[in-house]
């Protein structure tokens, strides 16, 4: 696809609504130094957006900024800048992109300047690198950092003592830190109200994601879902804007379902759903639309993905509970996808393949992210063994364009879909002869 075609790529109505919401949020962030709204940087997995908002603070998610920089073609220069300053070529490119962006004036995704953080809320959830990232940002911004240790689900469940440990930290560390920077006292009723709004948005999001169980699927649950999860994973959980967005999205998807339409890919609506695929791993952001179009060109629709669960595994039943505001935040944090152990992640993939009646699964293994990538080759074999469905493995990176080889990925995808086709023909033949 040419750059011009990419720019003219079709957008859903909900994408336009979201764009406006985000633009407004970044404008508000830009004005924060004047309006004195405190700014809290935090991470997508384990974000405590409702709590942050309940203090009148504005959240900033550095991963979102990094991926947006990747999509806008800025990440190469940012990464180069960070590497010049001694950051290793081996480590997470989100971190280097973010640091490079800060060094280049901290201009955010919408072209407005991002304010410095008043607080770094280090929700240590499912990713070791988060800890180093905020230690690095603390040096960059010379601001306070509050740490929330979220224990990993090593045993495949949230242990009650771990939950209690998280609640104590939220109560004794996180809330006092937010009180200090905002000048506001903790207001549990305000938090509960925000959590009620979260539940509404979560219900609608799950409905949208699970619409992919229909044939044809009205959505793409990987590339498309990146947009769908944007508001709830970032600044808009627990807000009226978030609720309204998800209502609109649901209406839109319902409309497509009623009309029997498939998802809208970068070059337009998909005419045919030839393959139903489950995807594990984050997407590449520097060539996002090109990557998506490779799937669309093959008639492949992603019906479920694990990446769209990094900010919460709502489709497995979790909802924020307004009656237990601090406990529910602990549950939320511990339940984010990358905080699940490897057997749990394998179970999830197998469940998706079954529930969504998929033809197979693909792993996009990104160089930057050991949290996702370490163990994925074993996941590939285990899921194949347990489901009998074909798995494919492709490699790229989050935001470093040097690691996206379009020709290699396209070749692998074509081979993979040929394999799926061959399996399908073979199954059909067996069925006929039986």
């Amino acid at each position, binding site marked *: 696809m040419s750059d011009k075609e990419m720019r003219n790529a079709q957008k859903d109505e909900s994408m336009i609504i979201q764009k406006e919401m985000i633009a407004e949020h970044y404008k508000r962030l830009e004005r924060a130094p004047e309006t004195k709204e405190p700014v809290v940087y935090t991470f997508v997995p384990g974000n405590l957006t409702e709590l942050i908002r309940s203090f009148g603070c504005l959240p900033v998610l550095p991963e979102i900024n990094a991926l947006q920089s990747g999509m806008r073609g800025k990440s190469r220069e940012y990464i180069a800048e960070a590497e010049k300053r001694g*950051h290793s070529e081996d480590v997470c490119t989100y971190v280097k992109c973010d640091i490079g962006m800060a060094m280049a004036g901290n201009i955010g995704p919408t072209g407005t300047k991002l304010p410095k953080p008043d607080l770094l809320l280090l929700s240590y959830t499912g990713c*070791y690198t988060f800890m180093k990232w905020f*230690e690095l940002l603390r*040096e960059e911004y*010379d601001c306070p950092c509050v*740490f929330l240790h979220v224990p990993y689900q090593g045993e495949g469940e949230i242990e009650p003592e771990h939950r209690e440990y998280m609640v104590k930290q939220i109560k004794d560390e996180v809330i006092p830190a937010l009180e200090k920077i905002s000048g506001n006292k903790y207001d549990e009723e305000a938090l509960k109200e925000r959590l009620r709004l979260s539940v509404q948005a979560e219900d609608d999001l799950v409905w949208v994601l699970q619409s992919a169980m229909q044939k044809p699927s009205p959505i793409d649950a990987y590339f498309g879902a990146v947009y769908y999860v944007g508001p709830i994973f970032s600044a808009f959980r627990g807000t009226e804007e978030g609720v309204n967005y998800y209502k609109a999205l649901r209406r839109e998807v319902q409309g497509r379902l009623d009309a029997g339409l498939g998802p809208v890919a970068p070059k337009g609506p998909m005419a045919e759903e030839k393959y139903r695929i489950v995807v594990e791993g984050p997407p590449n952001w520097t060539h996002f639309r090109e990557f998506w179009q490779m799937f669309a060109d093959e008639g492949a629709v992603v019906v479920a993905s694990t990446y769209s669960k990094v900010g919460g595994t709502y489709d497995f039943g979790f909802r924020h509970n307004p009656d237990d505001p601090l406990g529910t935040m602990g549950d939320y944090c511990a339940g984010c996808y990358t905080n699940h152990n490897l057997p749990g992640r394998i179970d999830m993939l197998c469940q998706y393949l079954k529930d969504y009646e998929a033809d197979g699964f693909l792993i996009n293994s990104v*160089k930057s992210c050991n949290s996702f990538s*370490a163990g994925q080759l074993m996941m590939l074999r285990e899921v194949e063994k347990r489901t009998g469905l074909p798995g494919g493995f492709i490699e790229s990176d989050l935001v470093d364009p040097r690691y996206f080889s379009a020709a290699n990925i396209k070749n692998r995808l074509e081979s993979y879909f040929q394999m799926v086709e061959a399996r399908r023909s073979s199954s059909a033949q067996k069925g006929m002869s039986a």
Partner: protein
Amino acid sequence: MTPSPRAQIVDWATEIYEDLEFTVVREWLDAQPGRKAAGFLPVYAPKEVIHAAGMLPVGIHGNGAIEIIRGDAYYQSYICHLPRSVVELAESNRLDFLSAALFPSTCDVIRNLSGMWQIMFPDMYVRYMHLPQVADPVLGAQFWQRELNVIREGLGQVAGTTVGDDQLRASIGIYNEVREVIGQLYALRSKQPWKVPTEELYLLMRAGEVVAPEVFMDQARAYLAAAENSDERIKDRTRVIIVGSFCEQPPLGLIKTIERAGCYIVDDDFLAGNRFMTKAVPTAGDPAANLATTFTSSAVKTSVLYEPDPKGKKSLMQERAAAARADGIIFCAASFCDPALLDRPMLREGAEAAGIPCIAFKFAENSGQFQQFREQAGTFSDSIKLWGDAS
């Protein structure tokens, strides 16, 4: 000619280090029916708890000498080497003596390996250990105490026993002695590095990861006595600290190369788990609580734990250089090691701001060519000797 007692100790340690079959562990297990061994991955594991369950703590540190046949099928090229050799050891049945395995929260690779282990060895006791990360030492200690008790109960079940307080206190006492002798060895090397070549110290420490603590202490004390009495004379070398090799271990050849390039290593991170707590653990009172509070109050400053002090990263290298009277720092991390490589810019900036000369390179445990390291370390050493005072 009979080798000197010191040379015999080094030969003993070398043999253990080079043995990919863990013969010394197997012999320990065979010596008495019913004995069991528990493995642990880097960096830190509470060996006291394993020992108190009557089991042998066995450090699983990979091995650069092993030919990787199966391990590469589990890992992409951009993941460090350590888990490949660990999986290779496991898949080739070289770790079939393990009854339990503990995986500390060192990084995401080791974390995810814990899940892989659960799948590969469904009958083995496998526990992912969340080291306490919070700044509040009381809350951190409460959390870690509970984790320790979970591990204690789990290992007790594997060993077919209940790990009582008295057993745990006794094991704490033994490991206090281990820490003390290791501290003495490190202190001697820092003071008179010509008497304790790091190549030898490292081999001894590596042997200490797989033998019973009582055996290790005998050998370590004998080595210490021999080293103290050594008449080795000081050479004109640069005193350096090696930083960043706390998880995947460098090949022995790299350690030798750095020393032979004109450096005395006066402090390092190798096998950092054996020096993770910088104080003795009290032996009176609740032993799990003592282990936990000693951890939260005296854990070494390292990349695998959150640094609550905003100035902590910047000042750490200066503090370590001052304590070891080091002339320079060599940042020596394994390729793709997130903890070491993400920390490096902060640590290096702090060191350079304090006027401490630094260089950095990366290795893999199976690195076989040392020429580039020799040139870098040699040039670094020469430059400090020639111009060190000029700055």
